[in-house]
């Protein structure tokens, strides 16, 4: 530990010297008696001070958690030199909170090992590094301070809490690989599509005996193929509306994680485009590896202030495969993201927008002109929504009152009754 004399030691030594010199100069022995207590404390402190060298270890229960999970951190301190008071300060990064255990905390270490247990909660998704620990030891007379800093750099990934998703949005077009979606095309599958006359080479098991008996010739069943889809989650990270511990981006990330997980379960290929101050993308792929890749990528998502104008030309072509369903999660606050979505629609992408409403995050204000401005802003948002709907893009509003399931159902209903034109 680094030994630092305290200001008190300097003051006491100075007062002692001053008292002795004054006593000699003025000839008053009382001044020696006056200075003696300070000299005694400084001298005893110097004589008894011993530099401690504590050994510290920090253990984290696990390095992955889901938002809201609690984890145990065990801190062990061992010392051979008795420490009168040891102040321990374990830094907890923003986004995590200390549920049980004190930090900073003072304790006495007469020797041996001491174990402290902390419970921390992952309040917000993200990648964190734990283990920044500061130790300050004090001797009996507090004439020295002993500092030590440890950075154990224990990584902790807090994954977003998944939103409830029951039924997924189905894309208008399917891809060529096998999946769980009933394709429009006929092929190998189990869903009935049509009847046609038997031709040489047709399987006997495909013969529809009832239809054949009625018509007096062989007819076979045609079936819909079961295919997968390409789904691109478009995450608008240009800007966010924030209220205390929650923001539109937080919700968007949670929804993204839930959607990605469900689509991948259905054997679809899923890709991610994080469109914001920093452009981030992952090419569509399938499987658990892709799930971890996307979720890990989401943990690094943040709003980066950027004034550069961006449109969808900056997104690599392979990231947006043809016939892909693009699900945009956006607060519709930034013109660049809003423009890029219209561009995507104009290029024929099957687009659905889930608007993470920023309205609950905004105070309308108390003054009349503030409330008027708030109303105008809401009207402009309605107009933008109407603009998308006229372009055949469903926009579902997701806010405190509406769960994600309901928002997705709204999109599904729009697509059912107002199917957009194909590109």
């Amino acid at each position, binding site marked *: 530990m680094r030994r630092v*004399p305290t*200001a*008190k*030691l*300097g*003051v*006491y*030594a*100075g*007062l*002692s*010297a*001053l*008292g*002795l*010199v*004054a*006593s*000699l100069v*003025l000839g*008053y*022995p*009382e*001044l*020696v*008696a*006056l*200075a*003696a*207590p*300070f*000299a*005694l*404390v*400084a001298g*005893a402190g*110097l004589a008894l001070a011993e530099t401690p060298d504590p050994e510290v270890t920090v253990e984290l229960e696990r390095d992955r958690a889901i938002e809201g999970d609690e984890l145990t951190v065990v801190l062990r301190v061992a010392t051979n030199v008795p420490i*009168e*008071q040891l*102040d321990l300060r374990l830094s907890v990064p923003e986004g995590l909170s200390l549920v049980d255990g*004190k930090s*900073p*905390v*003072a*304790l*006495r270490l007469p020797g041996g090992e001491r174990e402290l247990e902390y419970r921390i909660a992952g309040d917000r998704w993200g990648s964190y590094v734990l283990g920044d620990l500061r130790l300050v030891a004090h001797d*009996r*007379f*507090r004439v020295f301070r002993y500092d030590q800093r440890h950075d154990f750099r224990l990584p902790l990934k807090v994954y977003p809490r998944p939103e409830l998703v029951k039924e997924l949005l189905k894309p208008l077009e399917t891809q060529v690989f096998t999946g769980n979606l009933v394709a429009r095309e006929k092929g190998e599958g189990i869903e009935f599509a049509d009847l046609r006359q038997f031709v040489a080479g047709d399987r006997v098991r495909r013969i529809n005996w009832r239809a054949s008996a009625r018509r007096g010739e062989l007819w076979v069943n045609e079936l819909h193929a079961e295919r997968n889809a390409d789904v691109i989650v478009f995450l608008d990270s240009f800007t966010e509306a924030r209220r205390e511990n929650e923001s539109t981006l937080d919700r968007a990330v949670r929804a993204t994680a839930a959607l990605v997980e469900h689509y991948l379960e259905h054997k679809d290929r899923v890709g991610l485009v994080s469109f914001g101050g920093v452009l981030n993308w992952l090419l569509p792929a399938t499987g658990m590896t892709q799930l971890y890749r996307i979720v890990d990528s989401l943990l690094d998502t943040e709003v980066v202030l950027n004034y550069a104008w961006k449109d969808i030309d900056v997104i690599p072509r392979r990231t947006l495969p043809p016939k892909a369903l693009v699900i945009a999660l956006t607060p519709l606050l930034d013109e660049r993201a809003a423009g890029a979505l219209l561009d995507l629609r104009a290029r024929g992408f099957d687009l659905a927008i889930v608007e993470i409403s920023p309205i609950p995050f905004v105070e309308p204000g108390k003054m009349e002109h503030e409330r008027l401005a708030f109303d105008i802003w809401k009207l402009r948002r309605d107009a933008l929504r109407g603009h998308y709907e006229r372009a055949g893009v469903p926009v579902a509003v997701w806010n405190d009152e509406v769960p994600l399931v309901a928002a997705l159902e709204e999109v599904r209903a729009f697509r059912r009754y107002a199917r957009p034109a194909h590109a």
Partner: protein
Amino acid sequence: MLLLALGALTLMLRGDSLAPLVGAIGLVAVLLLVVALAARFEWLLPWVLALAGAQYAAFLVIRETAIDPYAPIYGAGLLLVSELAYWAIERRVPGMPGEGLSFRRGTLIVAAVIASGGIGGLILAMSETSVRGGLWLEALGVAAAVGAVALLARLARS
């Protein structure tokens, strides 16, 4: 703070002709202590202690009589004021339950105050008996003063 005020008041009341001057120095020391405690200005504490010491020196100069027998008490009291002031100003870190850190520290301060008062008394008693000791003790005093200054210089360098 009350302790310092009590000490300053006692010295003023015990002073003869220039008692208001002694009282004024003590009052400034008390006011500085109030400011130091209220604003947590640790750097003001040396000035408080120096002023309190100066008040006592002024009291001795004005008084010009025999040795003051209360000097060790005043010195021990000043140490108590200083320790409590440093304790009050320093950043508080909550202790683990059952550690008894405050109790141990308080006990140590009281013990140091009592011991220093005793040593002060011993020094005073020795000074009364060794008035005829002369040069050797004077040289020892000079050496002690030089040693304290050297210690201060070393601390300033580290």
